[in-house]
């Protein structure tokens, strides 16, 4: 602000250790003010979701025998891959143990997500928008923004963890101990902390916020997948994942312990140091790689709005497709290990007859279902590109040429529709190839791809909702995330968290035929496609009618 009023002494302060952190306090206050709604929503939402799950267990499974049934079900390999193994198999399956066993990982993933998204929002996204430059030019140390963001985000994660601990601890549900509640909650909080620091590292590598959060989420995906492999195969691989460390406190079991949390603290500290080193190496707004020169003229592909949309979005779509294919391959490759595990507990076979479907079929349904929900994420991101192009003022010059609003929007929409379809099919392909190789049965490949393809209409409903919001109420575009979030928490995981089956009907993902375990039903697919089309048309019509928003 006021270099003019600075005294000469102030200008020649030696560059000491603390100098790089000047202004951290101001930045913290600024970030808290900016997120005065977002942060409380995350904290309260996480607390409500976990305590809600605990009380629904108490209501739905009052008898020990009910819970033993669940314990048996949770031994199914698909469940082990999804939520982790039962870390106290010989103890009575109390509500507390069940809660710790089934919910910890999933809630942990949400904490990690929060850590990544909040951190990038306050750092790399600000730099990309050029606002960080303005802030950094005032009296603010080089590390102040990163430090402040770490304090705010880690603080948020820990407060959320603490609130979960206290409300779970105070629930008085059987098997829940205060000590266990603290291990559970602080484990979650530390997962949030670790992934905020992962984001602190990825934020130094690339100059784009999207890329930075993408990389951090890829680390999260890998951490989740690698422990699935370890848990199903009962080997050391789980220990490669920080998600597993936090769970190794074994909350609500007889031998619960706190030391694994130390591993998380150490990892976070190491990542902070790495991030600090990397950030010393780069300029504000830049990535680690120096920018390269490109072509002086545009290729013929770049001659239409569709060409532009493809060019802008292709790397993101390709990254998602590769990401889902690799993620899927982890689970595909477990198909025989899981089958073996299943055989060992053959008592289950009678109990879980799967209505005629084979075990492998159920495995495919479970994990292609996860991929299907995940594929809605790039679909919505692709529609959000319309909005970011518009508000950044990059749509304006294009729309001032002979390109109509509708054609411009339709080109990004084409990328969203084709891209998301491609992502889920390629994800299914990755799963299927791995399953076919692992299970020595090429039939798995076709089954997996078909199971993935039937998700396309449901994903397109998410695209449709996003486009409708974009055209009609652009400020509310974020609401489109309700589809994957609801799909994941209620449809995909709902059974684990005691959500009623009827809640599935509200989501497009609740209507996807569960191939290959069920027969292919065309009607729901057609209905969803029609809904998607109607939403898209409404959105395009709304967009044509409204003003273009620019900064």
């Amino acid at each position, binding site marked *: 602000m006021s270099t003019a009023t600075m005294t000469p002494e102030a200008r020649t302060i030696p560059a000491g250790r603390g100098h790089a952190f000047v202004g951290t306090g101001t930045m913290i206050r600024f970030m808290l003010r900016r997120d005065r709604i977002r942060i409380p929503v995350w904290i309260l939402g996480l607390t409500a979701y976990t305590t809600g799950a605990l009380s629904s267990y108490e209501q739905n499974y009052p008898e020990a025998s009910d819970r033993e049934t669940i314990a048996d079900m949770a031994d199914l390999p698909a469940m082990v891959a999804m939520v982790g193994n039962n870390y106290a198999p010989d103890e009575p399956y109390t509500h507390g143990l069940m809660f710790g066993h089934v919910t910890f990982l999933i809630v942990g993933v949400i904490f990690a997500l929060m850590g990544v998204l909040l951190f990038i929002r306050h750092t790399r996204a600000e730099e990309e928008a050029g606002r960080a430059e303005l802030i950094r030019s005032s009296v603010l140390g080089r590390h102040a923004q990163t430090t402040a963001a770490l304090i705010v985000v880690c603080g948020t994660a820990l407060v959320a963890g603490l609130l979960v601990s206290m409300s779970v601890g105070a629930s008085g549900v059987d098997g829940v101990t205060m000590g266990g509640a603290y291990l559970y909650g602080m484990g979650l909080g530390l997962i949030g902390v670790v992934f905020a620091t992962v984001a602190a590292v990825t934020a130094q590598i690339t*100059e*784009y916020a999207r890329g930075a959060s993408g990389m951090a989420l890829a680390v999260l995906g890998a951490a989740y997948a690698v422990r699935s492999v370890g848990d199903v195969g009962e080997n050391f691989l789980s220990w490669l994942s920080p998600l597993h460390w936090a769970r190794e406190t074994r909350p609500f079991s007889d031998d619960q312990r706190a030391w694994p949390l130390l591993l998380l603290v150490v990892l976070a500290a190491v990542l902070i140091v790495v991030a600090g080193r990397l950030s010393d190496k780069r300029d504000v707004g830049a990535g680690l790689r120096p*920018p*390269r*020169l*490109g*072509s*002086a*003229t*545009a290729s013929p592909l*770049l*001659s*239409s*709005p569709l*060409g*532009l949309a493809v*060019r*802008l979005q292709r790397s993101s779509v390709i990254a998602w497709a590769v990401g889902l294919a690799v993620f899927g391959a982890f689970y595909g490759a477990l198909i025989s290990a899981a089958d073996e595990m299943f055989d060992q507990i053959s008592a289950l076979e009678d109990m879980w007859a799967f209505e005629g479907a084979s075990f492998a079929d159920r495995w495919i349904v479970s994990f292609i279902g996860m991929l299907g929900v995940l594929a809605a994420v790039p679909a919505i991101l692709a529609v959000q590109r319309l909005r970011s192009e518009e508000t*950044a*003022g*990059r749509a*304006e*010059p*294009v*729309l*001032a*040429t*002979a*390109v*109509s*609003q509708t054609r411009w929007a339709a080109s990004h929409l084409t990328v969203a529709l084709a891209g998301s379809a491609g992502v889920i099919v390629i994800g299914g392909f990755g799963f299927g190839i791995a399953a076919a190789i692992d299970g020595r049965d090429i039939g798995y490949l076709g089954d997996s791809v078909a199971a993935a393809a039937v998700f396309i209409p449901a994903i397109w409903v998410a695209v449709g909702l996003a486009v409708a919001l974009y055209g009609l109420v652009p400020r509310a575009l974020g609401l489109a995330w309700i589809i994957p979030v609801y799909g994941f928490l209620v449809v995909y995981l709902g059974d684990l968290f005691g959500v009623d089956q009827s809640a599935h009907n509200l989501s497009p993902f609740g209507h996807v035929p569960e191939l290959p375990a069920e027969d292919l039903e065309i009607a729901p697919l057609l209905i969803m496609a029609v809904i998607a089309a109607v939403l898209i048309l409404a959105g395009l019509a709304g967009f044509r*009618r*409204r*003003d*273009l928003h*620019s*900064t």
Partner: protein
Amino acid sequence: MTTAIDVTGVVKTFGQTRALNGLNLHVEQGEIHGFLGPNGAGKSTTIRILLGLLKADSGEASLLGGDPWRDAVHLHRRLAYVPGDVDLWPNLTGGEAIDLLGRLRGGLDPDRRRRLIERFDLDPTKKGRTYSKGNRQKVAIVAALASNVELLIMDEPTAGLDPLMETVFQDFIAEAKAEGTTVLLSSHILAQVEKLCDTISIIRQGEVVQSGSLEEMRHLTRTTVQAEISEAAGALESMDGVHDFRQEDGRVTFAVDGSHLDGAVRQLSQLGVRSLVAHPPTLEELMLRHYGDELGNGESAHVDPHGATGPGAN
């Protein structure tokens, strides 16, 4: 001559803000029209309406004989636009952006493209986000000028260009004019407007307060007179049409309305004039009159205590 831009009584509101309040704007074909006014006056809003990016609440607007909202695509083949604040695609080079925008408009002239890039000293191989502000602006200017169009709409096109590039820009605009291109030029650089524009419109709080050729405007306004005289100024000070009268040891300075110039000079000639300087108002003086009035009774009356929101945002 036919009319290239014809706007009558256009109103545009954003929530509580009345950005355009019955705006009239007329630009003849082949002329370069300066569009001036203080920050937040509504220049960019007018331009966005002309481009069909915003929909006017009421009023008539026609552009090259068509309706800017309904016939947008058709009209856009015949015009090129330079935004005031250029944000390029981070992963496209400047050259790619120029080609893309040109092709979307229906093609560009490769010779002219090459010449523009050369004269503007632009490196087309850099990625969008690595350009400096002035160079980003150049990309948009080259993209617009490289096409053969009938109408150029430019919103502060040279904000951020260095003086050398400013003259290059003026050369190209002169060239475009010679080819019969119509130009609507919104600008805060008065020297540029004075040099390039045939006619100007001054907009304030969403209304055009003055419009016409610079000559006409000068005539309507006051001439500044400075003289050294040997006698007491006497009656001069109290004459009709004389303003801002000042006198210090033998020098008088005053402004006089165009319609009273004759009388004032007659009076002055009787006072023993030893030296005399009279000049018509510069554009700057013309403008400051409008800008100044606004400060007097406009926004400063409702100063926003937070100072964070833009003019008229509350």
